[in-house]
């Protein structure tokens, strides 16, 4: 029962950082305007900036931060999680929708989604990779993230539960990080065909 550490922790943190919601709203409004106006630069901006940040964060989390957290003590993980996880709850879905909506419209704008186009195969490959990442992220990573935050909100958080959910979070972050390497290969191929 190495993880069965029950530690008193201050629970004065927000699961959703409400002060950041206006920023998220600005991104969504900008994205809707980009889609509605179908401007190439705006679509490219949302796809490249969103995708770059998404890929970078996934790789950094999966291969740099993840292994470090894995070696921390449970109380240290709790302290880190309280500050880190709420930001991820808002940041990642926003980056994902900006990347995917911008990317889809960009592919449509440029004709990449037509099966006759030379980029089509790579675009479909990217859809498959994103689809697998979506299942991993929404099926395992995000619920684990929320589970950890709710556990940390309790008067006496259960270290065993946090350890279990954090392990799930870190493994899935590593997996999506590895899949982002495939995304990098696909996107650089599309850009240079």
């Amino acid at each position, binding site marked *: 029962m190495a993880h069965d550490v029950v530690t008193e922790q201050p629970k004065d943190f927000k699961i959703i950082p409400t002060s950041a919601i206006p920023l998220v709203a600005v991104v969504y409004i900008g994205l809707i305007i980009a889609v509605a106006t179908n401007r190439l630069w705006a679509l490219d901006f949302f796809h490249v900036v969103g995708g770059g940040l998404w890929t970078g964060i996934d790789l950094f989390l999966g291969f740099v931060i993840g292994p470090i957290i894995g070696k921390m003590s449970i109380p240290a993980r709790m302290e880190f999680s309280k500050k880190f996880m709420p930001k991820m709850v808002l940041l990642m879905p926003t980056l994902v929708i900006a990347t995917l909506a911008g990317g889809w419209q960009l592919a449509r704008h440029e004709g990449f989604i037509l099966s006759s186009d030379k980029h089509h195969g790579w675009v479909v490959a990217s859809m498959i990779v994103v689809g697998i990442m979506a*299942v991993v992220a929404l099926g395992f990573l995000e619920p684990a993230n*929320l589970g950890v935050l709710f556990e940390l909100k309790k008067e006496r958080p259960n270290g065993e539960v946090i350890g279990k959910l954090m392990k799930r979070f870190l493994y899935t972050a590593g997996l999506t990080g590895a899949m982002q390497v495939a995304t990098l290969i696909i996107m650089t191929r599309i850009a240079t065909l």
Partner: protein
Amino acid sequence: MNTTKKLPPVSEISVVILALVVAGGVFLAAHLPKHTSLTFTTLTVVIAALLVLVNLVLLTRLTGFAWKTFFLVAKWTLLAYSIFAAALEYIFIKDGVRGSVLALMSATIVIFAVNLPIHFGFTVARYADN
């Protein structure tokens, strides 16, 4: 605490539903805008919809569950992913997707938006105190 209590496989079913809607959506999107067979996507949508019903039945049979936590997470997840789903629906309509393809895409998006609140709510509530 519910950590040791045996619970129905709601989360596992939710992940299968997610995989089905993603597979169906990717298959259809990969063939747009040309006409393609809708059999595969229809099949994934029907199976996913049935599995959502199975999950709802499993949930109604639960006793001693942390429903307050479940509904707290589920309602906010529903709000967030409804916005997400609405954005997707808007894009497909704006791109001129119509008829049975749009109906299938819409069904896929609705199942996606309904499934995630159940999944997130259940996953969090299973560890919550009653």
